[in-house]
């Protein structure tokens, strides 16, 4: 286990050290102490390493992550795992706004609640939230899966494209062009796999599926506000 004290060593040293890890590094386990809500912790990683942050993080923790596994033993500020490409990010606490925004791949697990705009413009990422998500989650979501074990706030999936949304609890309201859809056997399989990856003991049958009505896919003036 390699340990970096962020307070003592500074952000540039932390990220430069983690960026320097090669594909075949044998230094795979890293621990970050004293994050104290700092921004851009462990962003831009691109190696199969495991980074554990001992505390809460600020904005954009694990932004644009590739390959790495990042565990935050605390809560995460806005934009955690934004534009993630691959790998896994796990937040033990809550996540602020825009969690997993524009993510292309990988898995983001939030064991607490996520705030508004969770999964905004997601492009292939899988997001599993053990608690609730705030308003405008999955806004303009293009592809990937958002699993919400709790409740969803207002305007879920507004202007959604092809992403799949699974919610176990209530949905305060659906956004434009987002509808409830049939949960077919293949969706139950996908969801079972996601719940297992996310460490949730919920049953797929308890969820409802939401997605695009595909009525906004081609420009029509009657759809304009």
């Amino acid at each position, binding site marked *: 286990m390699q340990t970096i004290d962020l307070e003592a060593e500074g952000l540039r040293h932390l990220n430069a050290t983690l960026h320097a890890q090669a594909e075949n590094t044998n230094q795979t386990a890293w621990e970050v102490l004293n994050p104290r809500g700092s921004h851009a912790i462990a962003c831009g990683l691109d190696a199969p390493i495991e980074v554990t942050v001992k505390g809460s993080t600020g904005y954009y923790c694990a932004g644009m992550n*590739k390959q790495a596994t990042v565990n935050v033993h605390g809560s995460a500020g*806005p934009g955690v795992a934004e534009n993630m490409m691959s790998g896994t990010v796990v937040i033990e606490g809550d996540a602020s706004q825009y969690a997993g925004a524009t993510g292309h791949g990988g898995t983001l697990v939030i064991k607490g609640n996520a705030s508004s705009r969770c999964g905004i413009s997601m*492009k292939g990422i899988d997001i599993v939230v053990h608690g609730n998500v705030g308003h405008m989650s999955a806004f303009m979501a293009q592809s990937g899966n958002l699993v919400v074990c709790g409740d969803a706030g207002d305007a879920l999936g507004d202007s959604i494209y092809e992403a799949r949304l699974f919610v176990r609890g209530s949905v305060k309201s659906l956004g434009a062009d987002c509808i409830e859809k049939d949960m077919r056997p293949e969706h139950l399989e996908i969801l079972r796999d996601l719940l297992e990856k996310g460490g949730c003991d919920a049953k797929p049958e308890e969820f409802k599926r939401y997605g695009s009505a595909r009525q906004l896919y081609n420009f029509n003036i009657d759809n304009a506000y």
Partner: protein
Amino acid sequence: MKDIKNDGPPRTTPIQSATFSQSINAEIRRAAATGIYDIRGGGAKRKVPHFDDLLFLGASISRYPLEGYREKCETSVTLGTRFASNPIKLDIPVTIAGMSFGALSGPAKEALGRGATLAGTSTTTGDGGMTPEERGHSNKLVYQYLPSRYGMNPDDLRKADAIEVVVGQGAKPGGGGMLLGQKISDRVAEMRNLPKGIDQRSACRHPDWTGPDDLEIKILELREITSWKVPIYIKVGGARPYFDTTLAVKAGADVVVLDGMQGGTAATQDVFIEHVGQPILACIREAVRALQDLGMHREVQLVVSGGVRTGADVAKCMALGADAVAIGTAALIALGDNDPRWEDEYQKLGTTAGAYDDWHEGQDPAGITTQDPELMARFDPIEGGRRLNNYLKVMTLEAQTIARACGKNHLHNLEPEDLCALTMEAAAMAKIPLAGTDWYPGKPETSY
């Protein structure tokens, strides 16, 4: 023969309304018939105060000129000197503005890269990400970081020579965009993670930050991912140039890119293009004032765009305080957009060469703003690159000609005192004295 018109009392000559002009009335009829607003490409077509309303004074007894063809007049510029360890060094201060693969064909993007590289300048990606052809043919490539994040990934981010965070553009400050389904080929769809054939909306604001305090943190993240190597530009439309420039500097920009309302877009509502934003002439001095107030003029570089067409325009931008300019529409025209050789086909599309602006429909006869394989095949990227290089060379030579006439051995040595204004409006906007006077509207009172 009897002239019946002369029978009876004299009649009033029919008078067309200036308010309800023929073109306004035609647009009312079109709107009434279709129920949809006009969407088009390009920038503002209305006449606004512009660089044509400024003149250089030239040398005289109190200023001596440099020999036109022999004495050196430097044109190089370095962008991103504030924080980046690898600032961009360009031979000429004319760059190619961001235009997307999707809005433009792959060969057209390649031609922009080829021409820019030959001329020793940079080109810029757009919504839709970076293509290998564009990266391969561009010696200096600026990677746009846009609200849609289509195609955004850390590998391309690290391949870029600079990153341009796009907050807005001159054609539509505060607006997003839409790439209509007919231009979404398999490749465009794949790059944007969306199904083929559906309209692709480009958001008007970023998904994971709001406001200048967040932007500062976003820039920190981009710098950390790219190890503080490449410059970070912030591009804004010509809305509130003093405050936007101030906030961009505060957020940590290395370079501010300022785009006036004449700057083109791939597609948006005509009402947006013509009625939102300011002419670039009104923006430059305000942005320069902001930089000067912060003590950052020349430390944070200013790139201006929106209607730059000639070397005279370049020289005027330099004199007003810009470090470089960017061209988009002019570059497309150099490649062959709106060329009269395609007039028959423009006519079939209900338009004419010079006025064609339905770039979003993907039917461009010149094969530039299209993804149609047959139309694309009309365009030769090597010849396009040669033409763009020629054009950039001419602009540079023209700007040097003017600078030497003003006694300047570098384009950046041009200054407001080298200019006069032809109109009150231009004088007020550019803070340049009206020709024949030492006064411009709004000039602070001076006491002797």
